[in-house]
């Protein structure tokens, strides 16, 4: 109508050429090792270490611009499922995989611990910004719904200098399946027999009471915006949002503040009893300075990599993370691994092979 027949065919030709150009550009980038030397890796899993992994990815891409790594924090269970289905190159989970999950995988999956984190008790008490002390049984009973008011005598007993309001406690937990929940319920099962029988450990336990928030971010948001709430989040989220953090009594009887050193102390105390595959729970660890709700977080990789180029990029990244990456841990409120565990994790990375040959030479 507005364009002549010749003009129309000219426009059509231009469009076809540009589409062809775009398609060929897409084919060249981010794909086979044959075309160029760029490699792209995909990872998914826990939200717990997500802030740290994002920092690692941005720093690593500056050093190695030809390696593109994407990490999606969809939750520990999602990470386990994706690595079992081999839709990602590496998974991430706070709680180590169970025996049944490992058997269900097509080949052997290695657990490489990356950092340590703390699950902290955070709360919003209208009128007080003081730090509260919590005994393990008190925490369990609050989350069981047996302690309902902030000025319950058992909470008051642990906090002599603080006037607690007579308000109802509103419990906030995770609505989605989460490794943070798994670590927290693992701790509660250890310190409370009633919790162990009634609720148990898991990424999606059936919480007796409370409202659910989605992700660490959701719980943080609920606690921050609603007065008289109590919840559990990963330490970094509480610190960055300036929420008060409770001191928890450890197995030696001291009320410990969740600091990086206290978390490393919990791991150090458990090094002797850590099994070969590095799957261990360090909640309620022994040790006078240990913070009781600590946990490793793992990256899950297949021992036998199908694609040698991707496998090499992956092990190089993991090696970098284990050494240089640990330097970023402290500023983001994660605790670096104890030296012994670093050595054992190195051995795991060195054992990753592709077609039988190890990908790293020592």
């Amino acid at each position, binding site marked *: 109508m507005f364009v002549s027949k010749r003009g129309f065919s000219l426009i059509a030709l231009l469009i076809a050429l540009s589409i062809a150009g775009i398609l060929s550009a897409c084919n060249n980038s981010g794909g086979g090792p044959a075309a160029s030397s760029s490699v792209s890796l995909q990872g998914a899993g826990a939200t717990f270490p997500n802030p740290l992994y994002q920092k690692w990815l941005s720093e690593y891409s500056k050093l190695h611009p030809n390696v593109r790594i994407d990490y999606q924090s969809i939750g520990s269970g999602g990470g386990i499922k994706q690595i079992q289905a081999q839709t990602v190159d590496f998974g991430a989970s706070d709680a180590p995989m169970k025996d049944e999950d490992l058997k269900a995988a097509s080949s052997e999956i290695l657990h490489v611990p990356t950092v340590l984190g703390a699950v902290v008790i955070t709360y919003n008490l209208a009128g007080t910004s003081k730090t509260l002390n919590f005994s393990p049984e008190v925490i369990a009973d609050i989350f069981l719904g047996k302690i309902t008011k902030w000025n319950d005598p058992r909470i008051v007993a642990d906090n002599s200098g603080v006037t607690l309001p007579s308000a109802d406690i509103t419990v906030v937990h995770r609505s989605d399946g989460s490794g943070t929940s798994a670590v927290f319920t693992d701790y509660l099962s250890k310190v409370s027999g009633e919790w162990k029988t009634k609720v148990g450990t*898991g990424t*999606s336990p059936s919480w007796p009471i409370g409202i659910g928030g989605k992700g660490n971010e959701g719980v943080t948001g609920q606690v921050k915006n609603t007065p008289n*709430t109590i919840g559990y989040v990963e330490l970094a989220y509480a610190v960055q949002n300036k929420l008060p953090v409770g001191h928890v009594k450890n197995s030696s009887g001291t009320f410990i503040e969740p600091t990086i050193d206290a978390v490393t102390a919990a791991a150090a105390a458990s090094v002797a009893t850590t099994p070969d595959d590095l799957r261990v729970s360090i909640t309620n660890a022994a040790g006078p300075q240990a913070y009781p709700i600590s946990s490793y977080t793992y990256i899950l990789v297949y021992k036998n990599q199908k694609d040698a180029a991707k496998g090499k990029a992956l092990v190089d990244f993991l090696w970098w993370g284990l050494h240089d990456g640990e330097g970023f841990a402290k500023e983001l409120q994660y605790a670096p691994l104890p030296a012994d565990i670093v050595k054992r994790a190195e051995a795991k990375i060195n054992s990753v092979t592709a077609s039988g040959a190890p990908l790293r030479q020592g």
Partner: protein
Amino acid sequence: MSAVADHNKTRTFGTTDWRRLLSPTGNTGDAIFRVLMFLMAMLMVSIVVAKVIALTSDSLMSIRQFGFGFLLGREWNPVKGEFGALPFIYGTVVSSLIALLISVPFSLGIAIFLVEQAPLYIARPVGFLVELLAAIPSVVYGLWGIFVLAPFLRVYVEPFLARWLGWTPFFRGQMTGIGLLTGGIILAIMVTPIISAVVRDVLTAVPGSQREAALALGATKWEMIRVVLVNGAPGIAGAIILGLGRALGETMAVTMVIGNRPDISLSLFEPSYTIASAIANEFTEATDNLYLSALVELGLILFLVTFVVNGMARVLVWNVLRKTGGVGRAA
């Protein structure tokens, strides 16, 4: 038209002229067009059928394990492997009902105002703004709900309701601003633009002769509007069904403010859980096959609930048509 009718009459059925069989004019283009349109319509139907088949087959494991008890089961415990859908069905239905209760009067009011009463220089911008509400993403509603609506409800509205209506079982318990009431209110806001837009169209479609006839017989403005409403009743019912459909399936906004607790409680202040929220929250973490299957069965139930609700509303529309003999469209 009569020429075509004559043409039909003289058609010889003994021929194998497929073009004549497929279209009255015997035109090839028409025949192809008709086949194409038929295929597209069948594609839509087959997609729905395929969805039902996929949902059913993936939830077979859970259906075999729990049977009908799933619909009545009140406990949702992934750790122990016990799954019951009643809390989710309750949460979905009640939050949608609250949304409709709040939204329908507002939507009707907006539509009547914009069509019957407002001068054009007001009707256009206001109408545009109302429709803009429908364009806001669900997550943004959820964020607004957490940071603005929930504190507002907690500080002003819930204490007011508890004081005056606390004797009913609907307004009891802890007032956190997060719960069934907040979910219902957010859904109401999300559903209002849809209902009001369709009702506006319906009211505009009522012929002006109806309005003039009412006024000529001495009706007041309100009585005239009533006549228009009765005329458009099936269309209005259709609009409400559309709104209900959106409310039943709305996920992100509701997840952020409803509290995500699979419990059944009469009080609107208590947290609750909808089917869509449960699937969104738990699907990525469901590593267990039975867990996955139970979640898919929840999806199947939502599908069936929407189906039944629409069916009931259709029956309602037919009744209205019979009673009033209204001229509304087959909405």
